[in-house]
């Protein structure tokens, strides 16, 4: 097991290297002179020259790439062209709201979607099942920002139950922190809930046909224990997989959600950086997101062993 973890962590190195190469090339894939592109329309030739030098564009591509990688390995993600602050500092300032939003969404989505899928499978073909499936289709087809604006309009503006927008740091108390995250989490989570509920239902339907479920019934096990212990634990592997894949979805959705609810997180930072063509920031954020995703995948593979004893590494 330990050897496997070490091997898997080592295996992330080539993956991250490829990601790094793409992220780095981002700057040069954009048409035209990167320095001129970054400097924008109103820049003087001096500005362009200054940017060209600061990016080291006069040196060969591979040299620049290795220098950039070397800096990253030492924890230096470069300096923002726009604010002149180190990228790592900017990310550190913005990471808490995004992390909070992700965690609240994850908990909310799992605790709603899994029971929904389980009950739908149990009551297959009934009104409850059809309601869950209808919700799932709706969740898939309505974009995050539509859900977000609708929620904000009714829950915040019309009924005044929750704040419209903004973010309160966790250090200022649990409820003020949570209060601001509920609507964004529902908006961001709706697709995710639909995805998890569907896969839970489909997997549970298959598991409930198995002989060992009949054995559990013959033993006198109650319906709840059959569903949530005997069946759900067997259905866990595909569900956990989808939850993990969905985290990529969340990262993408967070960018939109943070804009809708004015949350000063990494998503907003990314959008702002793209609008300003602040390439070092874009590179830093994308690199971070990729790294998180690689780690999530590793965590999922390790979680499998927790649910299914037949999976051993």
């Amino acid at each position, binding site marked *: 097991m330990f050897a496997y973890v070490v091997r898997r962590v080592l295996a992330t190195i080539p993956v991250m290297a490829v990601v790094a190469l793409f992220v780095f090339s981002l700057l040069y894939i954009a048409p035209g002179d990167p320095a001129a592109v970054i400097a924008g329309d109103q820049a003087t030739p001096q500005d362009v020259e200054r940017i060209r030098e600061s990016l080291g564009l006069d040196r060969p591509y591979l040299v620049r790439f290795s220098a950039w990688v070397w800096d990253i390995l030492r924890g230096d993600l470069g300096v923002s062209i726009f604010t002149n602050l180190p990228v790592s500092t900017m990310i550190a300032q913005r990471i808490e709201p995004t992390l909070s939003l992700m965690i609240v969404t994850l908990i909310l989505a799992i605790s709603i979607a899994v029971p929904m899928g389980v009950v739908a499978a149990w009551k297959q073909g009934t009104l409850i099942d059809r309601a869950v499936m209808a919700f799932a289709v709706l969740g898939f087809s309505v974009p995050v920002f539509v859900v977000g604006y609708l929620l904000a309009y009714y829950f915040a503006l019309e009924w005044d139950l929750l704040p419209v927008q903004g973010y309160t740091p966790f250090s200022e108390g649990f409820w003020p922190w949570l209060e601001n995250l509920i609507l964004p989490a529902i908006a961001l989570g709706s697709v995710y809930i639909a995805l998890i509920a569907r896969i839970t239902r489909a997997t549970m339907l298959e598991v409930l046909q198995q002989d060992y479920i009949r054995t559990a019934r013959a033993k*006198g096990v109650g319906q709840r224990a059959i569903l949530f212990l005997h069946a759900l634990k067997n259905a866990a592997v595909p569900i956990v997989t989808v939850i993990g894949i969905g985290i990529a979805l969340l990262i993408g959705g967070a960018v939109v959600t943070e804009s809708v609810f004015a949350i000063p997180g990494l998503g907003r930072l990314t959008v702002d950086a793209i609008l300003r063509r602040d390439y070092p920031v874009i590179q830093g954020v994308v690199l971070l997101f990729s790294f998180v995703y690689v780690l999530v995948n590793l965590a999922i593979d390790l979680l499998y062993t927790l*649910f299914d*004893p037949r999976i051993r590494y």
Partner: protein
Amino acid sequence: MALLEIDQLQVHFRTPDGINRAVDGVSFHVEAGETLAIVGESGCGKSVTAMSMLRLIPEPPGKIAGAIRLNGKNLLELSDREMRQIRGNDISMIFQEPMTSLNPVLTVGRQIGETLRLHQGMSKAQAEAKAVEMLTLVGIPEPGRRVREYPHQLSGGMRQRVMIAIALACNPKLLIADEPTTALDVTIQAQILELMRDLKHRVGAAIVLITHDLGVVAEVAERVVVMYAGKKVEEAAIGPLFRNPRHPYTQGLLGSMPKLGSSLHGDETRLAEIPGLVPSLKQKIPGCVFASRCPHATDLCRSVAPALELKAPNHVAACHYAPREGAMAA
């Protein structure tokens, strides 16, 4: 009073193309401590009969009618909650497929302990101790280690032993065994049968053994019910049934079984087969259900269904032409 009385049991399934009468008016009883075998080929309704005794038939599409009385109490009238208290406690069941009948993600100990915690209110520690005891009883070596293992770490024979341990953990009055040895290889089959016979004496449970294998029946059963197309066609004690089968179907079943010591060559010793297949249970058959495959069938058989008649003391059969006591036709 018999331990279990099945009275005019009917199990029907609604399907898109009609009602499937899987079990159609079957009655029999089981005395405390006895072993009754229910015999028949695939599709005769024997497994459905077994499942309905624990009300494990999904309703709908299934529908159970008649009465199933355990110590005089009709199980079909119980609430789901009361029924759960019977399952695994008063009546327990082992299934054909040991490879798939155990939950792959729970330890063997947990699966045995679960019934004990449910029905006897044991603590986790007590249940585990008793699980080790049960594993020892069913002859699993190193029970202390095995109790923490998962089903995939055990062989098929060992898994069936675990199933037996689960079934017997709460000292049931009745054990229903649905083809318990069919999926196992022959040497293991003998061991499992031996184990069941041994444990039956120790626990004192009655056994209903569902099987198509008359060899197994001869080995363990005291009384036999022969089923065909959802109906009981013959019932007798093991000796008379094997020596003097009255119903042509039973005769066919026995004829298709090789006899020990008989020559494997020559025409006279050729194994007989019953031609044809079990008829579809979706249409009502006007006459005898076996008429279409019976070598002795007449117009009477094809138009009038024979009633179950006492052909000899404690020996009933449903056949117009089956001989009564003494008078044996060829």
